[in-house]
C-alpha cells in the first residue's frame, strides 16, 4: 500500500471524473448538485481548470451542453444527481440523440449496496436512459471508471455523434482506485464506425452526378457534425458542379444563404423552389441527412423520378424511409473529398442551364411572401429586421420550437455552420434559452440570440437566473403572439378552428420578469419602433428579454399539408380559407 500512496494515478472516483474531464479538454460543464454527486462537487470546488455553470433545472444543463456542443463541435458535458436529477435529463438526452449532438452526461447514483432497494433519490438511470442515449454505463467498480469515462467521450464524439451517460454510484465516487489517461483499448472492440466510403459506390455516384440533367444536392446536419472540412468540400462540390443546393433545418449554414446556388430550406415549411426541385429532380445527392418525415412529405410521392445517392455515417439511416439507389456509408467530409477528386479527374461540369431556368420560374413564385403592415409587426418582418441588423456581426442563433422557429429558418440567412442551434428531431419547446446559455459560455464575446415564442420560452424561463449569475448577455427575442402559434395553426387547418388550449392566457409581463431576474426587459409593439429596439437590445451587455408583440393570427407558409407531396405545397397567396380547406382534404372544414 505504501508504495501506491505516492502514485499520482491513485485517486478517488470523484477525482477521476474531474481528471478525465481535463484530459478530454473539457473547460466548462453544466450541472446541478445533489446528494449522490457531492463528492464530485467537492472535487470541482478544489480546482480551477473546469468551470462549472450552475443551472436552475437539470433540463437546462442538458440543453446548455447541447448548445455548447453544437456551436463548438466539441462534446457538451452535464453533471446531475441521481433520481430526479437524472430523470430531468431525459429530454435533453433524447433531443441530443435525435439531432446527433455529442453530449456526455455524468449522473450520480445511490451507493451500489442500495441499488434496487428503492433508496432515496434512486431510479434505474441506465434503464431509463437506455433508449435515449447512444450508449450508457453503470460503473460498479472504481477501477473501471477511467476506462468507461474515456470510452464515453470516444463514443459520444465519433461515428454518428450522440449523447452518452455514465452513472456513478456514490461509493464508487468515494473509493480509491487507479486512473489512467485515455488509450485506445478503452473502447469496445465491437465499436468501429466506418469513415471511408466504398470506392465503387463513389464511382457510381460520380457517374450519376456527371450525367444529371436536373440535379439537386440535399444536405443535412451530418455535414456540420463532420466538421469544417466537410463544409468546405460541400461548397466546393456545389461550385464545381454548378448544382442547386437545399438543406434540412439541421443543415442550415453549411452552404451560405447568400450563395448563388442556394434554394432555401426544404420540407414542410421549406421554400417552393426547394421542394419543387426535389420533386422534379433526376439525380439527388443527399449528404448527411436522413429523409425525415418533415422533409419527405408523402413518402410514395417523394421525388418519384430521381436516382438517389445517400451519404450517411449511420447504416441504419439508409433505406429507412426512402429507398435509395447508391448508398455510401461513411463520414461526409471523407466521402465528399473522394467524390470531388473523382469528379474533377473524370467528369466535366454538366449542363444544367435549362434546369436553372425552371428553378428560376419556381423562385419567381416568391413563396416566402408576406404582407407587411404599418400598424402591427409581422413575425417574418421581425426576423428579417433582426437578420439585417445583426448581419456581419459575430452572431449565434438558437430557437425554441414552433412558428417562430420556422420563420427563423426561413428568414434568417446563415452564412456559416455552427451558428444555428435548434431542436429539430425532437422538437423540444424550451430548448433555446438554455442552449443560448451554453453557446454564450463557449463564445463569451459573441452575440447570442434565442429566437423564442411566448409559450416555449416559459418552459425553461428559470435559466434567466443562470444567465444573470454568470453575466451571460444572451438575448431572448420573443415573437409574442399570445398563442402556441404552431398548435393554433394546426387547429385552424385541421381541427375546425377549435382553438383548444392554445391561447397563452395570463402571460407574464416579460419586461418586469426580466427586471425581476436582474436582466433587461424591452418591449416593442409598433413596426416603426422595431429597428431602434433591436439596436438597443444588441448594444446592451446584459441578458435581455425582448417582448416583440407580433400579429397574433399570422400563420407559417408555405407549407406541405400532411399526406401531400412536395409539388402540392400551399403558398402564402393561396392560403385563404377556401384553398386551405381544399388542400387539407380529409381534414375538418375550416371556419
Amino acid at each position, binding site marked *: 500500500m505504501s508504495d501506491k500512496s505516492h502514485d499520482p494515478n491513485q485517486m478517488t472516483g470523484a477525482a477521476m471524473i474531474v481528471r478525465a474531464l481535463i484530459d478530454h479538454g473539457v473547460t466548462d460543464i453544466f450541472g446541478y448538485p445533489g446528494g449522490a454527486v457531492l463528492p464530485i462537487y467537492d472535487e470541482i470546488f478544489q480546482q480551477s481548470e473546469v468551470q462549472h455553470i450552475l443551472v436552475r433545472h437539470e433540463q437546462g444543463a442538458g440543453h446548455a451542453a447541447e448548445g455548447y456542443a453544437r456551436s463548438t463541435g466539441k462534446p457538451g458535458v452535464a453533471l446531475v444527481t441521481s433520481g430526479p436529477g437524472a430523470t430531468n435529463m431525459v429530454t435533453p438526452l433524447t433531443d441530443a440523440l435525435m439531432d446527433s449532438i455529442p453530449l456526455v452526461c455524468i449522473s450520480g447514483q445511490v451507493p451500489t449496496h442500495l441499488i434496487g432497494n428503492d433508496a432515496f433519490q434512486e431510479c434505474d438511470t*441506465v434503464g431509463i436512459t437506455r433508449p435515449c442515449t447512444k*450508449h450508457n454505463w*453503470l460503473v460498479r467498480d472504481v477501477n473501471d471508471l477511467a476506462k468507461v469515462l474515456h470510452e464515453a467521450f470516444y463514443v459520444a464524439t465519433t461515428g454518428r455523434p450522440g449523447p452518452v451517460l455514465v452513472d456513478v454510484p456514490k461509493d464508487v465516487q468515494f473509493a480509491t482506485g487507479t486512473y489512467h489517461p485515455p488509450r485506445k483499448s478503452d473502447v469496445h472492440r*465491437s465499436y468501429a464506425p466506418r469513415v471511408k466510403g466504398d470506392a465503387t459506390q463513389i464511382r457510381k455516384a460520380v457517374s450519376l452526378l456527371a450525367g444529371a440533367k436536373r440535379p439537386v444536392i440535399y444536405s443535412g446536419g451530418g455535414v456540420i457534425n463532420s466538421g469544417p472540412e466537410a463544409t468546405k468540400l460541400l461548397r466546393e462540390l456545389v461550385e464545381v458542379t454548378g448544382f442547386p443546393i437545399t438543406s434540412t433545418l439541421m443543415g442550415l449554414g453549411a452552404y451560405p444563404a447568400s450563395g448563388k446556388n442556394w434554394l432555401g430550406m426544404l420540407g414542410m415549411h421549406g421554400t417552393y423552389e426547394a421542394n419543387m426541385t426535389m420533386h422534379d429532380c433526376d439525380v439527388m445527392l443527399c449528404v448527411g441527412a436522413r429523409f425525415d418525415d418533415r422533409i419527405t412529405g*408523402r*413518402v410514395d410521392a417523394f421525388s418519384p423520378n430521381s436516382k438517389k445517392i445517400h451519404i450517411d455515417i449511420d447504416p*441504419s439511416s439508409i433505406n429507412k424511409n426512402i429507398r435509395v439507389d447508391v448508398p455510401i456509408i461513411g463520414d461526409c467530409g471523407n466521402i465528399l473529398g473522394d467524390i470531388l477528386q473523382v469528379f474533377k479527374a473524370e467528369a466535366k461540369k454538366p449542363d444544367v442551364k435549362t434546369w436553372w431556368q425552371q428553378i428560376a420560374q419556381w423562385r419567381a413564385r416568391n413563396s416566402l411572401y408576406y404582407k407587411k403592415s404599418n400598424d402591427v409587426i409581422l413575425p417574418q418582418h421581425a426576423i428579417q429586421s433582426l437578420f439585417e441588423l445583426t448581419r456581419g456581426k459575430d452572431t449565434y442563433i438558437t430557437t425554441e420550437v414552433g412558428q417562430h422557429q420556422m420563420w427563423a429558418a426561413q428568414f434568417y440567412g446563415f452564412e456559416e455552420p455552427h451558428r444555428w442551434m435548434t431542436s429539430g428531431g425532437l422538437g423540444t419547446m424550451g430548448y433555446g434559452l438554455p442552449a443560448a446559455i451554453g453557446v454564450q459560455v463557449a463564445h463569451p464575446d459573441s452575440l447570442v440570440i434565442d429566437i423564442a415564442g411566448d409559450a416555449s420560452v416559459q418552459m425553461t424561463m428559470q435559466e434567466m437566473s443562470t444567465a444573470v449569475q454568470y453575466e451571460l448577455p444572451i438575448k431572448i427575442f420573443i415573437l409574442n403572439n399570445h398563442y402556441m402559434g404552431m398548435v393554433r395553426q394546426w387547429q385552424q387547418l385541421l381541427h375546425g378552428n377549435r382553438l383548444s388550449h392554445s391561447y397563452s392566457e395570463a402571460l407574464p409581463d416579460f419586461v418586469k420578469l426580466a427586471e425581476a431576474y436582474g436582466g433587461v426587459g424591452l418591449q416593442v409593439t409598433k413596426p416603426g419602433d422595431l429597428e431602434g429596439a433591436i439596436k438597443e437590445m444588441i448594444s446592451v451587455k446584459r441578458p435581455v428579454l425582448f417582448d416583440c408583440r407580433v400579429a397574433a393570427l399570422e400563420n407559417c407558409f408555405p407549407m406541405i399539408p*400532411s399526406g401531400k407531396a412536395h409539388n402540392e405545397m400551399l403558398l402564402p397567396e393561396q392560403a385563404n380559407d377556401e384553398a386551405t380547406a381544399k388542400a387539407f382534404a*380529409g*381534414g375538418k372544414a375550416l371556419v
Partner: protein
Amino acid sequence: MNQPASAYFIEERHDPNETHTLAVLVQNEPGVLARVIGLFSGRGYNIESLTVSETESQTHLSRITIVTTGTPMVIQQIKHQLDRMIPVYQVVDMTQTKRSIERELAMVKVRGQGEHRVEALRLADAFRARVIDATTESFVFEITGNTDKINQFIDLMRPLGLVEVSRTGVAAIGRGPEGM
C-alpha cells in the same frame, strides 16, 4: 382513402412479411440483453423467438439468436439497428445466407393411460424424441429439431393428453467449415 387530420402522413404498407433468423454476437456485459430487447419493443419490431447464452467464456462473448418477422425494409432496419449498438460485434442474417441449420429443443409432458400412452410412446419414437421422465401415468419427452417438426409433434400429443411444453427457442449455425 381520406387522411384523418394529422400532423403525420399515415401510410399503409402492403409489402409481405418475411421471417428471418438473426445471429447476433455480443459482449456479455450487464444490460446487453435489455438493450437488444428494448430495441425491438421500442421500435415496434417482432420477436418470435429469442435464445441467448454465453458461447465464449474467455472473451465474454454471447450469442443471441432472434427469429423475427417484418417487411424486407424492416428486416434490414433491424439488422442495422442491432449492428450499431456498442456491445454488438456482428449480426448475421442466417435466413439470407440460406446455409444455416436451425434447431430447437422442447420438453413435452403428456399424461394418459392405456391406448393413448402407447400411441404417445410410438409417435415419440417416430420423431426420435427421448423419454427423460416417466411415471405410470405420464411421460416427459425431449425432442430436438426445427420449429416445424416440434410444432407437429406437439400437435400430435395434444389429443393424447398434452399437459405442458417448455421450449428453448431457436438456435442457428451456418453450414460448412467457416465461422461467423
